[in-house]
C-alpha cells in the first residue's frame, strides 16, 4: 500500500530528473538511428521486388513499428545499477522503505513518454501514411497492442534489473550489459524480421523463439503489422505474459542473492 501511495510522487520525480538536462533530453529524443538504418538497408534490398515475402513498403512498416516498440519498451536500468552498486550510491536507495525494483522501475517508466515524445508520433504518422496497407486492421489486435507493449516493457525491465544485479558480484559488469544488448539486437527482430531469419537459419530461429527476445520486440511488431487470428493473438500474449512473470521472478531472485554480496563501498 505504501508503495502504491508513493507511485505518483516517484513518477513526478522521475519526470523531473528526465528533463533536468535540456540538451541531453533533446538528444535522447532524437537518438533512434538503428531501425532507420535498417529501414534504408532493407528497402533498398527490396527495391526491385519483394525479398522473401516482404515488399519495400512492408519493410517500411516493419521498421517503423520496430522504432515505435523499441522507443516504448527500451530500458537502460542495468547500466544505472552497475554504477549505483560500483560507487556505493545504492546504499542510499536501500535506506528507503521501497524495494529498488519499484523505485528503478518507476523512474524508467517515467522517462519513456519524454524519450519517445518525438520519435513515436512521427513514426506513427509515417506508418499511417506510407505503410498503412501493412498495418493490421483487426481492432482486437490494435487493442491488444497496449498489454503487449506493457508486457514487453516488463520483460525488458526485468531482464535489465537481473543483469544490473550481477554488478553485486562483478565490479565492471558493463561487458555483460553489452552481451545482452548484442543478443537483443540479433534475436529480437531488431535487425531483420524473424521470418526472414527463419528462411536462412531455421534452427537458430526456433531457438530464438525459446528466448525472451522476440517477446520484447518481434511480438508487438507482429501484432501491429500482421493480421493474426484470435488464437494466435492469445498465444503471443500468453508467451509474453509467461516471460514477464519469469523475468520478474528471475530479477528478484538475482537481486536477493546479490544483495548479500553488496559491499556498500564509500562513505
Amino acid at each position, binding site marked *: 500500500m505504501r508503495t502504491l501511495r508513493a507511485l505518483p*510522487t516517484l513518477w513526478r520525480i522521475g519526470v523531473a530528473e528526465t528533463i533536468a538536462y535540456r540538451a541531453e533530453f533533446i538528444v535522447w529524443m532524437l537518438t533512434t538511428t538503428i531501425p532507420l538504418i535498417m529501414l534504408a538497408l532493407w528497402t533498398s534490398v527490396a527495391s526491385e521486388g519483394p525479398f522473401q515475402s516482404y515488399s519495400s513498403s512492408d519493410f517500411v512498416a516493419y521498421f517503423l513499428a520496430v522504432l515505435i516498440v523499441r522507443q516504448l519498451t527500451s530500458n537502460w536500468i542495468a547500466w544505472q545499477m552497475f554504477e549505483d552498486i560500483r560507487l*556505493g550510491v545504492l*546504499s542510499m536507495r536501500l*535506506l*528507503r*522503505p521501497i524495494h529498488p525494483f519499484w523505485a528503478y522501475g518507476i523512474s524508467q517508466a517515467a522517462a519513456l513518454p519524454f524519450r519517445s515524445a518525438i520519435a513515436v508520433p512521427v513514426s506513427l504518422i509515417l506508418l499511417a501514411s506510407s505503410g498503412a496497407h501493412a498495418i493490421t486492421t483487426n481492432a482486437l489486435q490494435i487493442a491488444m497492442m497496449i498489454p503487449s507493449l506493457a508486457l514487453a516493457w516488463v520483460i525488458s525491465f526485468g531482464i535489465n534489473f537481473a543483469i544490473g544485479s550481477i554488478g553485486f558480484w562483478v565490479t565492471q559488469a558493463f561487458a555483460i550489459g553489452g552481451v545482452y544488448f548484442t543478443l537483443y539486437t540479433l534475436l529480437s527482430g531488431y535487425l531483420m524480421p524473424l521470418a526472414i531469419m527463419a528462411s536462412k537459419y531455421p534452427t537458430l530461429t526456433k531457438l530464438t523463439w525459446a528466448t525472451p527476445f522476440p517477446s520484447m520486440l518481434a511480438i508487438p511488431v507482429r501484432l501491429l503489422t500482421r493480421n493474426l487470428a484470435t488464437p494466435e493473438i492469445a498465444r503471443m500474449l500468453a508467451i509474453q505474459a509467461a516471460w514477464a512473470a519469469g523475468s520478474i521472478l528471475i530479477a528478484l531472485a538475482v537481486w536477493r542473492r546479490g544483495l548479500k554480496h*553488496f559491499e556498500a563501498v564509500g562513505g
Partner: protein
Amino acid sequence: MIRARELTKHFKVHRRPPGFVSAMKSLVHRTYDTVKAVDGVSFTIERGERVGFLGPNGAGKTTTLKVLSGLLHPTSGEAQVEGHVPFRREADLLGKITLVMGQKSQLIWDLPPAETYALNRAVFDVPKDQFDATLEELTDLLELGPLLDKPTRQLSLGERMKCELAAALLHRPTTLFLDEPTIGLDVAMQVAIRDFVRSYNQRHDATVLLTSHYMDDVVALCPRIIVIDQGKLIHDGDLRGLIKQMDPDKRVSFTLVAPATDEEIAKLGTLMTREAQRVTLKVPERQIPEVVGHVLGTLKAADLAIEDPPLEDVLRVMFSKEKE
C-alpha cells in the same frame, strides 16, 4: 535500542603488486586476502543514548554502521536495531532509522533538495501535516530557506550537509547513525550541526551513534564512547572514565607575567608546550592545588585553566598501546 553480539564482517580483497606483469598475471591467477573489518564486536546502546564511535581510519566504524543500518549482511554474529534484524531491511525498521554519511549523498543530484524531501515523504509515508511541521522546524533550525529550490549540485558542501541532515530526519527516525556528519564543514557549521543533533536527541528521545574525526563533535555530544581498532572493541564506557584510565593527569595552562625559565616551570609538572609566555603543564590530579597555588602566587600568572587532556591525545596513547 541497538544491540550487537559478536558481530563480524569480513571482506575478500584482491591484492596485486603494481606493474604490467602483475596486471597480466592477475588475469589468470588472483590472490585474495580476507580483511576482518569488524571482528567480534559486542555492545548495547539504550534508547536515547548519544554514543561516540571512535577508532583510527580503517578500524571498522563505518562498516559497523552499515551492518547496523542493514546495508551489509554480517559475516557472523547478531545485530538488532529497534527490535529488528537490520539486514532484513523491513519497512518498519527503515522508517525508524537513518544513516547520514558525510561523503555520500541521498539528495537527488540534479534536482533541488525539496524534490528529495517530497520523495522521502512519499516513500516513508509521512502524513502531510507532520511533514510540513517537521520541514518547517528543520528549515528554521538549519536555516534551509534559500537552499530548498537550488539544484543540489549547486550547493556548497556545508549547505548540502545541512540539506542531507534534513532529508535524513524528515521521517522522524528514532535511531540516528551519523558517519562523519561534520566532515569538511567550517567551525561555525560544525557547532550548528552539533547543537542540532543534541536538540533532536532530546526532543525525540532518539538514539545517536556518531563517528567523527573531529573530537570536538564527540566531546560535545557523547557522554559515552565506544572505541574500536582493527575491527575489535577496545573500550566501551563514559568519556571521562576513558580519559582518566588512559591519561589521568590534568593539563594546566597559564600565561606568565614575570619571566621564568623552563627549569623552574618543569619543577611543577611535565612541560608540554611553551610558546613565549604561554605554558601548558601536565600535572597529576592530586598535585593540582599545590601547583595552582604556586602558579598564581609565585609565578604571578595572568590567567590559569585546568583541563582534561585532549581526546586526540588520549586516543593516540590508546592506539599506540594497542599496536604494542
